């Protein structure tokens, strides 16, 4: 259960008028950026991996560990999948402080720890993400960039095996976006976790991810590098997407 491993999945499920059909593999050293037009199913894909949306047909695996297999009836509940999730707008618990948000995650992580050890873990994360001065602030009293770091720290505090980020920079202003993007890229490098990042920003695609997956009308079956995408745009959306490169 604790081994690191690549994330691989193949899910097919109806989403309203759309039919989600995505089969991909995400390696630990290569964060995957997921792009696509609005309503194409990007955020929903994250939710299916998380276990928050039902999957009609398919399977999800982390390393050798099966999280979902509709054929054999395996369906691990959200609480046990150990997947870290940072939604758009971060979803920090508004009634708790930064420290309490992190503590909640540490409590929920499957690793048994004494109160002292838990405190140490929280301190470590606060330090790593430069949040120590904000520890006692209410989650609602933070700037966009600070919230993002707290949300990230919280997701990591539960010792996940996979990280899912939904539009991590969308709620930031242009200046913050630039700075946080660089920070995030570096940080993800040190983490070495299979990571999926949903974004609509071509800059994110270039900087944050090693590979790119394009979901259009719910389907996607391969990943490309940014360079490959630019060389041979596969659709109108893609050519516009890469054309906006600075």
């Amino acid at each position, binding site marked *: 259960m604790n081994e690191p491993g690549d994330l691989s999945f193949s899910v097919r499920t109806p989403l309203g008028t759309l039919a989600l059909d995505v089969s991909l593999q995400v390696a630990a050293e290569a964060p995957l950026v997921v792009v696509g037009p609005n309503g194409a199913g990007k955020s929903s894909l994250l*939710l299916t991996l*998380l*276990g*928050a949306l039902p999957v009609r047909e398919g399977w999800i695996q982390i390393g050798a560990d099966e999280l979902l297999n509709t054929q054999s009836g395996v369906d691990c*509940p*959200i*609480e*046990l*999948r*150990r*997947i*870290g*999730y940072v*939604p758009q*707008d971060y*979803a920090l*618990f*508004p*009634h708790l402080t930064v420290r309490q948000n992190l503590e*909640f*995650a540490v*409590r*929920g*992580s*499957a690793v048994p720890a004494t109160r002292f050890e838990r405190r140490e873990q929280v301190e470590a994360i606060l330090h790593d993400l430069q949040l120590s001065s904000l520890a006692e602030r*209410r*989650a*609602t*009293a933070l700037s966009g960039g600070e919230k993002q770091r707290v949300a990230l720290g*919280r*997701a990591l*505090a*539960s010792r996940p095996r996979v990280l899912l980020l939904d539009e991590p920079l969308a709620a930031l202003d242009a200046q913050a976006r630039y700075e946080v993007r660089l920070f995030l890229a570096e940080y993800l490098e040190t983490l070495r976790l299979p990571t999926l990042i949903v974004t609509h920003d071509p800059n994110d695609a270039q900087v944050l991810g090693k590979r790119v997956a394009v979901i259009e009308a719910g389907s996607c079956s391969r990943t490309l590098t940014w360079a490959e995408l630019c060389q041979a745009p596969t659709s109108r959306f893609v050519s516009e997407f890469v054309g906006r490169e600075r």
Partner: protein
Amino acid sequence: MTRIGLAHRVQTLALGTLAALLLAFLVIPMGCLMLGTSWGEFSAGLRHPLASPALKLSLWTSALALVIVVTLGTPLAWLLALRRGRVSQLVETLVVLPVAIPPAVAGLALLLAFGKKGPFSNWFSPEGGSLALTTSAVVLAEVFVSSAFFLQAALAAFRRIDARLLIVARSLGASPFQLFFRIALPLAGPGLVGGAILCFARALGEFGATLMFAGNLQGKTQTLPLAIYTAMESDLRAAQALSILLLAVALALFFGVRFAERRSHASVEGRL
């Protein structure tokens, strides 16, 4: 003034008139109740032998009813809010139904369920027992009629919680208890408090079901509303004084808990 300005004035006036009509209709009878008694009559009415035992009984039975409704109703509302299937919709309709049932009907239903001729009669006592005409019956009747008010408010409060917060909490490995006690309950707090006020007020004012199921005995089952009704048979002045008392108690509780609700709201929003 322009033509449009005038038209807007007329529309506001029309809305205001409709509003004022209902407001007046609600306030005037209460005004007549309060102003129709002199202070002397009021204090004499308070010293009426029916007053003190009825007030005490009403307060503690309603409080107990509230505790029962909140303790059992909060998990119920939470579980119903989590699931959206047809079964939970059916359950939701059933538990909110008592709002539409006339209190007398509720009283009769309780009598048939828990009375001498009910299905549980042999559980209460080998020769056939009954919960009717006891102080417990007062609490049960109050729970029955007031729970729907709390449940509706609690359901709405839980449903208002951003679903993503719950998803994130679960993805962090939260157990059902952690999810309920640390996330859902604090966030739904203000709504739950509001529902509790309504529940308590309804329990305090309950009359029809208690009269039928619990009876009317001073000190044991004669709640304040029943005392008022009984007093009316012989002494309208006393009934008036007791009514003002009940109104005052309800108002005091109402404002007191509204204050607490505002504080609870502020703390959730991080202003405290």
